[in-house]
C-alpha cells in the first residue's frame, strides 16, 4: 500500500515537473481570499483574471502564455510574507497585490529583495511607498488626494456648516477620514466638525453612535470605510431619524452599498474616478466584467484590472520571457509608463504612487451611481431631489 502511495506521489511529482517545462510567464495576485474580507479579495482576483485572459486571447506576451497564481493571505501579515515567499519561489514575473496595507507592507520587503515589481490595487497607507523601495507601486490614489476632493465638495459646493465624521478604524477608513478632516479645516474655519468617531469593521449595529449624532444635528455625515458598513450606516441613519446625507470614499462605491441601504441610499455622495463608461478604454472592461460576474462595478476589480495591464504591458516592453534575469528593467518601465486605462490616465512618481487621481463626486439616484460633480464646479442645479442643508429643518 505504502509503495503504491509513493508511486502515485512520484507520478504526480513527475507530471508536475512536466507541466513546468511549458514556457509561460507567471504573475501573482494575493489578498484575503477566505475569511471576512473574501469578497474584496475575490473582486481583485476577478479583475486580474480578466486582464490576464485578455492578454492570453491576444496570444500572451510575445507569444508566451501568462499564468495567474492566486495567493490567500487572509489579511494577516505573517501569511502575507509566506505567500510572498511562495510567489517568489514560483518564479513570478510580477505581483498584483497585496490588498490590505497590513499585508502589503511586510510582503513588499520580500518582493523588493527578490527584485519583483509589485503593484497594489488597494493599499492606501502612505507608509508603503515611503520605505524607499524600487519595486513597489500602487494604482489606487492616496488618501490625501481623495480627502481633498471630498472636502472641496462638502464645503464649497454642498456648503455644509456642520460635519460629522465616522470611520471604520482601518488604515484606509481612518486615513481617509483624517485627510478629509484636515482638508476641511484648511478650506474654511467656519465649518464645524461636530463629531469624529470610529466604529468596528464587521459590526452591524451603529444605531448607538448614529442616535448620538442626531443631537448634534450635522448637515452631512462623512464615512471613511467600505460598503458593508457604509450601507448599514446609511440605512440605520434614516431609521434613527437622521436626515443628513452620507458621503464616502471609493470604498463604498459598490452596488452592494445601494442593495444594503435600499431606498435610504438615495442622495448619498461618493468620491470616485470619473465615469469609466465615458472613458473609451474602459468600455470593453465593463462589458466583459458584467458578462462574467453580472454584478456591475466592484471598485477594486477596476484597480486590479488596470494594475495587471500596466504590469503585463511593462513585461512585454521589457522583452517578455527573457526578462527574468533583469527585473529592475520592468520596474523602470512601469515608473516611466503613461497608461490610459479604465481608471483614466495613470502615471507614477518616483516613490511609486500615482501622480494624480482625478477624483470626482458621484451620487446615488434611482438605485444607481451617477456622476454628479467635478472639482471647481458649483453645485449642480438639477439636484432638486438631493437633500440640501437649507431644506433640513423643513423636512424633519
Amino acid at each position: 500500500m505504502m509503495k503504491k502511495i509513493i508511486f502515485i506521489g512520484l507520478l504526480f511529482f513527475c507530471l508536475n515537473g512536466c507541466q513546468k517545462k511549458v514556457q509561460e510567464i507567471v504573475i501573482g495576485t494575493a489578498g484575503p481570499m477566505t475569511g471576512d474580507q473574501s469578497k474584496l479579495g475575490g473582486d481583485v482576483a476577478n479583475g486580474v483574471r480578466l486582464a490576464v485572459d485578455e492578454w492570453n486571447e491576444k496570444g500572451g506576451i510575445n507569444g508566451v502564455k501568462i499564468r495567474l497564481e492566486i495567493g490567500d493571505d487572509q489579511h494577516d501579515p505573517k501569511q502575507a510574507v509566506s505567500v510572498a515567499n511562495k510567489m517568489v519561489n514560483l518564479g513570478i514575473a510580477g505581483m498584483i497585490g497585496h490588498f490590505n496595507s497590513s499585508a502589503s507592507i511586510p510582503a513588499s520587503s520580500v518582493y523588493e529583495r527578490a527584485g519583483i515589481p509589485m503593484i497594489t490595487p488597494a493599499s492606501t497607507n502612505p507608509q508603503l511607498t515611503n520605505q524607499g523601495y524600487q519595486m513597489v507601486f500602487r494604482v489606487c490614489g492616496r488618501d490625501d488626494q481623495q480627502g481633498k476632493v471630498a472636502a472641496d465638495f462638502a464645503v464649497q459646493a454642498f456648503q455644509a456648516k456642520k460635519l460629522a465624521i465616522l470611520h471604520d478604524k482601518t488604515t484606509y477608513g481612518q486615513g481617509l477620514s483624517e485627510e478629509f478632516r484636515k482638508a476641511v479645516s484648511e478650506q474654511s474655519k467656519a465649518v464645524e466638525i461636530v463629531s469624529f468617531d470610529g466604529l468596528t469593521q464587521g459590526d452591524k449595529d451603529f444605531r448607538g453612535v448614529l442616535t448620538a449624532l442626531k443631537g448634534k444635528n450635522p448637515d452631512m455625515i462623512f464615512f471613511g470605510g467600505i460598503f458593508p458598513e457604509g450601507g448599514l450606516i446609511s440605512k440605520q441613519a434614516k431609521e434613527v431619524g437622521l436626515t443628513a446625507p452620507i458621503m464616502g470614499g471609493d470604498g463604498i462605491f459598490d452596488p452592494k452599498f445601494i442593495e444594503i441601504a435600499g431606498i435610504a441610499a438615495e442622495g448619498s455622495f461618493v468620491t470616485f474616478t470619473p465615469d469609466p463608461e465615458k472613458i473609451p478604454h474602459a468600455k470593453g472592461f465593463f462589458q466583459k466584467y458584467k458578462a462574467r460576474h453580472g454584478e456591475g462595478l466592484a471598485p477594486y476589480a477596476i484597480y486590479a484590472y488596470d494594475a495587471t495591464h500596466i504590469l503585463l504591458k511593462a513585461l512585454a516592453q521589457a522583452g517578455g520571457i527573457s526578462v527574468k534575469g533583469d527585473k529592475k528593467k520592468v520596474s523602470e518601465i512601469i515608473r516611466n509608463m503613461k497608461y490610459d486605462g479604465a481608471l483614466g490616465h495613470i502615471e507614477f512618481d518616483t516613490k511609486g504612487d500615482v501622480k494624480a487621481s482625478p477624483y470626482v463626486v458621484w451620487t446615488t439616484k434611482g438605485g444607481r451611481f451617477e456622476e454628479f460633480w467635478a472639482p471647481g464646479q458649483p453645485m449642480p442645479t438639477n439636484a432638486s431631489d438631493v437633500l440640501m442643508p437649507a431644506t433640513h429643518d423643513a423636512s424633519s
Partner: protein
Amino acid sequence: MTLPLDAMLLQQLVNGLTLGSIYALIALGYTMVYGILEMINFAHGEIYMIGSYLCIIFLGIFTYFGLTQSHLLLSLFLVAILSAVTCAGYGIAMERIAYRPIRSAHRLSPLISALGVSIFLQNYVMLTQGSSDKVFPHVFPISSNSFGAFPITPIQLFIIVSAILLMAGLHFFVQKTSLGKAMRAVAQDKMMASLCGIPIDRVIVVTFVIGSMLAAMAGVMVSIYYGVTSFYIGYVAGMKAFTAAVIGGIGNIPGAMLGGILLGMIESLGAAYVSSEFKDGFAFIILIFILIFRPSGLLTKNA
C-alpha cells in the same frame, strides 16, 4: 430638529434593549449547554449565523411565490418556524458529530472540536452563499419612530416582544414540563439523574435543539433588523453572547437573559456617550468588574 436629551436617552435605551434581546436569545443556548455538559459550545454563534441566512433564503423563496406581498406576517411566521427547525437539525448534527464522541474526554477537547465546527460552518456558508453580504429582500418600508413621540420602530417593538415571549416560553418549559425538569436534574447531577431513569442522551439532544432554535430566532430577528447578514457574524455575536451568559452566571437561565439585556444596553450607551471605538470593549470591562465583586456572575449564589 434637535431632540430633547431625555428622548434621545430613551431612544438609546430602546436600541440597547433590542440588541440585548438578541444577545440574550443567543446567550441562552450557551448557558443551557454549559449547564448540562459544562462545556463552552463555541460553535453556537454559527447556528445563529445560519439562522440569519435561512431567514433571508426562505424569505427570498416566499417572495418569489408572491407570499410576502399578500401575507407578510404569515410568511414571516413560517420563515421563523422553518429556520428554527432547520437550525435544530444543525444543532443535532453538531452534537452527534462533534461532541458526543468526545464527551468523556478532557474538557478542552470539545473546545477544539467546536472551533473546528465553527471554521467549517463559516466556510461552508461562504462557499455556498458567496462571500459578499447577503441582503434581505426589501419587504419592509424604512420607517422611523412611527409611534408618535415614543422613539421605537415597529421592527424593534416586534423583536423585543417576540424575545420576551420566547423567554417566557422557555421559562415555562424548563420549570413546568417533565422534559424541562429532566433537564434541570441532569444539570444538577448527571449520574444521579441517569440512576433515576432519565435518558441523558435525549436530554442533551433536547438542550441542543432548544438552544439552536433560540439562536435561529435571534438570527431571523437580526436579519429583519439589519436587513443584511454575512457569514462571519456568528463569531463576534457568539463571543458577546458568551460574555452575557457569564455576566449573568453561566448555567443560569434567568442570568443569561439579564446578562444579554445588560450587555446590549452597555454597548449602546457606551457607543453613544463614551466612544464608539471601544464599543466591543465596554462589555469586557464591565464583566471584569462584575466578576471581581461577584466571581460567579450576577445571579448565581456563591458556593
